[in-house]
Each structure stands twice: as structure tokens, then as C-alpha cells.
């Protein structure tokens, strides 16, 4: 049952629950007795910078950062971050699950720069890979009750893809089980909504 090598990057900005999401993925792997290593890259994440969590499984995954072009799965919590990450790391047939709701940087908020159209970002991504699932996870989380649950929605969408059996079987339990008491019910709903939305893809398939 041991994986040889499977690589995931969770890409977003600070404050989106990136590291928590990565931890849940890693915990599922540990539960399934897979060798696991998680590495992080961040640019002052607490204060609005980029965050990437590299999650690697398998006996051939020892160094803490995913090698370029070898990422099997990118979870994009933020669209611009997702596309930048995919261009650098996504394997040619890799899967990208992307939240389409942007987080504006201070430059954009101050009117000094503009954020690209989501359609432009999608177009770039779709020329890189056919396997893209886009969803407005922030809006879904808002409907469920709290935008902070956006990362859970994305994890639900991941679960629907069946890309790894253990994500189908164990991810929900780890996410809900690991949630603080006050957020358990919220996360359960968010995960379920993500699961349902993941089945409706925005590109091909």
C-alpha cells in the first residue's frame, strides 16, 4: 500500500488556514502509514504574504520541498497564488483545485496595481494542464456560515476527486476530528459542500 512518491502544494496567502489544511493532509497519510514530510515557504505570511505548504508522501520523498514539475496536486486557496505555483511546480498531468475568490495585496488595495481578471488566470492555467477544478470556495464557505471555512471547502472538493483513495476515505474524519469544538459542525457542512461542488468541474472532464 506504500506510495512511492506523491507531491502536493497548498498555495495561498497568510490567514487562509494553509498550514492547517496541509497538516490535515499529512495526518491522513500518517494514519495510512505513509512516509510523510511537510515543508513550508512563506514571505511574512502573517502580514499578507504568500504561503506555500509542500506536502510529500512516499518512500522516495525525503526533502521537504516538492521538486519542480513534480507536483501531482496543487490546492489553490487563492487564484493568483495558485497559478504562479502551478507554473513552477505542477507536473504535466497534475491536478489543480483552485478557489476563484481573490485576496488583494496592499498594492492592489491602495490602487497602485490591479489584480488580473480571473478569466485571464484560468486561461493561463488551462494551457498548462487539462485537470483543473475551479470553484468559488470563499462564497461557498460564506453560505455555510464563515469564510474561514474556505480551506475546508477545498479539502472537500479534493475528496470528491478520488485522486488518492485515502483522501476519499479518511480526510473528512481527520478534518472534522481535528477542528476546534466550536467549528466542528461548520467544517462538516463546508466539507460536504466542497465535496458536492468538486463534482461540478469548470474545465473539460
Amino acid at each position, binding site marked *: 500500500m506504500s506510495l512511492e512518491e506523491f507531491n502536493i502544494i497548498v498555495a495561498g496567502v497568510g490567514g487562509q488556514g494553509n498550514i492547517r489544511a496541509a497538516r490535515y493532509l499529512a495526518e491522513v497519510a500518517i494514519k495510512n*502509514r505513509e512516509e*510523510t514530510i511537510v515543508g*513550508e515557504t512563506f514571505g511574512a505570511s502573517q*502580514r499578507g504574504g504568500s504561503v506555500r505548504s509542500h506536502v510529500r508522501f512516499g518512500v522516495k520523498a*525525503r526533502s521537504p520541498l516538492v521538486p519542480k514539475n513534480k507536483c501531482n496536486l496543487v490546492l489553490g486557496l487563492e487564484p493568483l497564488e495558485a497559478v504562479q505555483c502551478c507554473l513552477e511546480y505542477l507536473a504535466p498531468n497534475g491536478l489543480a483545485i483552485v478557489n476563484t475568490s481573490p485576496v488583494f495585496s*496592499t*498594492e492592489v488595495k*491602495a490602487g497602485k496595481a490591479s489584480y488580473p481578471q480571473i478569466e485571464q*488566470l484560468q486561461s493561463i492555467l488551462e494551457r498548462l494542464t487539462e485537470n483543473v477544478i475551479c470553484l468559488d470556495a470563499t462564497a461557498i464557505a460564506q453560505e455555510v456560515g464563515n469564510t474561514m471555512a474556505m480551506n475546508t471547502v477545498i479539502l472537500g472538493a479534493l475528496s470528491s476527486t478520488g485522486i488518492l483513495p485515502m483522501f476519499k476515505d479518511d480526510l473528512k474524519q481527520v478534518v472534522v476530528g481535528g477542528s476546534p469544538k466550536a467549528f466542528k459542525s461548520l467544517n462538516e457542512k463546508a466539507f460536504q459542500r466542497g465535496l458536492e461542488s468538486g463534482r461540478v468541474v469548470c474545465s473539460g472532464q
Partner: protein
Amino acid sequence: MATGNKTGQVTEKKLLLGNEAIAVGCIDGGVKFAAAYPGTPSSEILQTIAAKSKQYDVVTEWSTNEMVAFEKAMGYSLCGMRSMVSMKHAGLNWVADPFSVAYLGGVVGGVLVITADDPNCHSSANEQDNRFYGLFFETLVLEPSSPLEAKEMAKQSFAISEEIEMPVIMRSVTRVSHARSGVEDAAAYYPSLEGNFVPNRDRYWISSDRSLRRHRLVHERQALMQEIGARSGLNRYSNVDADTCIIASGVAWQYVSDVLDGTGLTGKVSTLKLGVVQPVNEDVINRALSEHDQVIIIEEGEPFVELQVRALSSKLEHHSHIYGRHDGAVPYCGELTYERVQDVLAQILNIEDPVTSENAELRSSLKEELDQISPGRGMFYCAGCPHNATSYVLSEITRKMDKKPPIAGDIGCYVLAAMPPYNLGDVKYSMGASISVASGLSEALGRKAVALIGDGTFYHAGMPGMLNASYNGANIVVLIVDNATTGMTGGQPNPGTGSRADGSPAREIKLEDVVSTFKPDSLDVVDAYDLEATREALSKAFDTPGVAVVITRQRCAMEYVRDKRKMGEAIVQYRVDPEKCTACMRCVRRFNCMAISKEEDLMVIDDTCMGCGVCALVCPSDAIERVEGGSQ
């Protein structure tokens, strides 16, 4: 995976941070005193031990600085108790002074000094390679390659330290300390010891004649360290009868292993994994050199292992070719990555990983397209940060001056004053440098200079400079931004916060009391959110010759929000009145808050607002108002 440990308990593997694994290893190795100063990427080590301090009877503390932490640890050690001190790489510069003499007398209870280095300076002002301190002070240096190995080395280090009678240095890096993997979260329990001090002036009272004698002794101990390196099991030599041997230490070993797999070279080149990097084991190095035509040295940081290998090779008759940084094979500066290591092997062995060059052209053209339309993502103060308010006022006041005062900054969140729109800050070095540098600037220029320093930094390193300014004279404004925490590193307590590492209450040593002791020419304490009061105090300080101190005080916004959320209390927020807002954008152009953005033709405040109200004071149209109720 369940295994048994010493106490017979069955334990599962948990996803642990490298630093958490190190903490568990220290406890499992019998540590009884742990001290540190917060510093990325080391802070979680002490935090984890502190959280377990009652369960395992370990005394833990956030010392006022790393030097103090080490000195106190020596006190414990001389009474027979195992102690640990952890720090970021810069901290070892502070420890170096007492270490430089203490190591001669040596330890009784084992002492482990953990330095978490920062190659690529993700969170530091430099990327110094602290393994050199082990060479400088002739002591053993361990270098783990993974969270699991870090735990095992930490555990073993105390016994090693006692055997060599010297402090042991363990050198971690960001990619080990901040990586997570499956590790058993279990440690044996060692009951509290009663300290016992056996006088031994020959060892502990280091006078110059004793020092020479001890220095000779320490040097003779290198043979024992060689032997320990050999029997520790921490070095692994795998000779596959090839032309090439790769020598790697620490996390570099993981990159090498992955690249060998990716290029199909596993089993086709020999490898030597070093866990003890000072002194490197001469026997195994000599064998690697004699048994191969070429040796490639891959290590994180400077050519530390490489220098030793080259020195050893000069004693040998057979000379294999050594590739490393010295001959330009491995790049200097910046951290290693899979790609960098792959490039090195590609150049030397003429082989590559086919995957990394797949569809390179497509990626490159798409990247170009994306770059054209991507805005930057710079960092800035959190919404509500009191330092933001202070920076705004400082910027406002200095902008109006003919000759702007040079500003010496320090280490903390307030370095963000250097970001637009304030662009404040001329010189920044290390902890506490702001006050003394400003003193020098002010005298050389014959006019006011500013020192910008935080409460945590002041307690750590600001006092000597402050005392000197008062005693030797200086013409400075010392602006101490006090958010009642050591913020940049995640919010640890300090002498001003009234609490300690293990959560117990502590004497509150107020900044203004400390500062008054140094007899400044003026001292004012104001609410950081009160822009008018800050303006008044700062203007007065600029007009006061000598040492003029202003303390701006308000709680760290992140901690405030964290507490509110924990207690389930609503956070009062502010909103923009669309009728009054003229979109002059002063709130993001002159001031700047991350919670405010422009939507269509109006400014909007989002949910990250924590209600500091500073934007309302900044707005010239009185268009921002407080909202009762607020979000969760």
C-alpha cells in the same frame, strides 16, 4: 505506527514539527533546565518544552537574551543537571562570549546548545553558518537531516556532552526545524534532581594560567570526539564500488537522496552521510577519499565540512578530486534545493532528471504572460497594529523637516515602517543596535537621530546602548514601540508582560521604570492609537536636546483578536460612510491599513478590521465611524 518506549507505553507516530521533535528528544534525553530567547526558526523548541514542563518536571524560561540563557544553563550544569539552550543563528553570537571561557572549564550535567540557522535568510538579517562556532570552540557539532533525526540527536547529545565534558552544539536549519513528519511524541520521565555543587576552581574559575592548561586539555580531547563520531552511528558510509562518492550532511542529505533517485543514480554512486560535522571523522573521510576518484561535497551553508575534508586530503597520498564550493561546483549563498543539487550533479556527472526540463518552453512563456498582469504581494502591518499608527505619525512629522533625521531601526515587526507609504528607516543591523547607532549618527552629524526599537528588543539588547547614550551623551529620539509582547516571533512573553514561559505570573518590569533609571532628558508614555498625543510627544522629543524618549503603547492587534475569538466576544469594527467618503485615499496612501480597500469609487473596510479607530482619525472627511455589534 505503534512502538514501545522506555516507560512501556505504546505510542503512535504524530505529525510533529522538527522543533517539536527536538523538544521531545531533549526531554527524552533527561533535560532538566531549558532556556531560550525567541528567534525564528527556533522558537517552538522552548515553547514545546514549556508546554510539557509540569508533566516532565523541566524548568523552562524565556531568558532576557541568549547570553543570559547560556550562563544560567551553565549554573544548572555545574550542579549536575542537564540543560538546553536554543536560539536562532544570531543568538549564538550572544552566547559566544560566555561560551568562549565556559567551554574550557566544561560541563558536569550535559549541555546542548541548539542553533536553528536560516540559510537564504527567510526570517533573518543574514545566513551565517553556525557550525563554525564548533570549530572555533573545538567542540562537537551534530547536524540532523530530518525531524526524526533531530529528535534522536538531541536525546543522545547530553550523554555525549558529559563524555567530552563540553557543551555540544546541534545545528538545525529552517528546513529541518520547520518541516513536519511522523515522529513518536513520547519521552521518558526523569524525576527532578537535587542540584549538587562540588567546588572545583581549577575548572570553573578560569584564570589565565588555568586557561592555558585547560585549552591544551580541550585540544587533546579531539581524539575522544573522533572516537565518539565513529561509534555514534550518526555517520553512514555506503561504498558501492563506484568512481564517485557524495558526502552530505544535514538536510543536504535529503536533497541528495531525492536527486539520486530522480536521476537514476541510486546505488551507482557511493554516499557518506555525516551526522557529526565537527570534527569530521578522519577515518571515514580518508576512506572515502582513497576509495574514489572524485568526491562531491553537498552541505547547507558554507564549505564547513569541505574545509575539513580538503585539509585531511592534503595529508593523504592518494588525491581524489574534491568538488564543492571552493572550486565553484556548488553555489555560494542561498539555500540548497532539489534543482540546485541536481544542477551540481548534472555538471559533474553529466546526467539529469528528465522531469525537470519537461515543457520548459511552455512554462516560460506562460510565466512571462502572467508576470505582465501580476501585482506584487508585499508585506505590511496587520490591521490594527499600533506600530502602524506610530509609523504614520513619525512619517508625518519627519516629512515636514528640512533635514530629515536619520533613523536607526531594530529587530521586530516595526521594521515594516520601511515599507511604503512610510519608507522610514536608514540603518538596521542586529538586536539593540538602533540606540547606539543613532547615538553615533547624531554626534557625527551634529543633529537629532532617531532610534526605533520595540519592547522585546529593548529588554534583550537595548539597555547597554541606552545607558551609554545617557552616560557618554547623545542627541537622539528613542522611540520605543511597546505592544506588550515579543511579536514578530509569534507572541512570547517578556519582562514587561507579567507572565513567563510556563504561563506562571511574573513581576512586571515596566519599560518607563527601566528607562527612567538611565536618566533620559525627557520621557513620555502615550497611547499608540492616540495620534494627537503621539504627535505632541514626538514633536517635544525632537525639540529636547540629549536623550529624549517616547514610549508608544498599545496591545498587539493579533493578540487582541486572538483573545476575543477565544472568548467568543464580538470585535467592534469601523465602517466607511459612503455619503461622506470622497475617495481621497488618504487611509491607504498616507496611512495604510490592510483592512481598507477601494471598491468602485469608495473605500471599504473589510472583516479583518479589529476596531483600533486610527483610520477614523486619519480621514480628513470624517467619513469613518464606529459600528456597534461587530463580527465574531
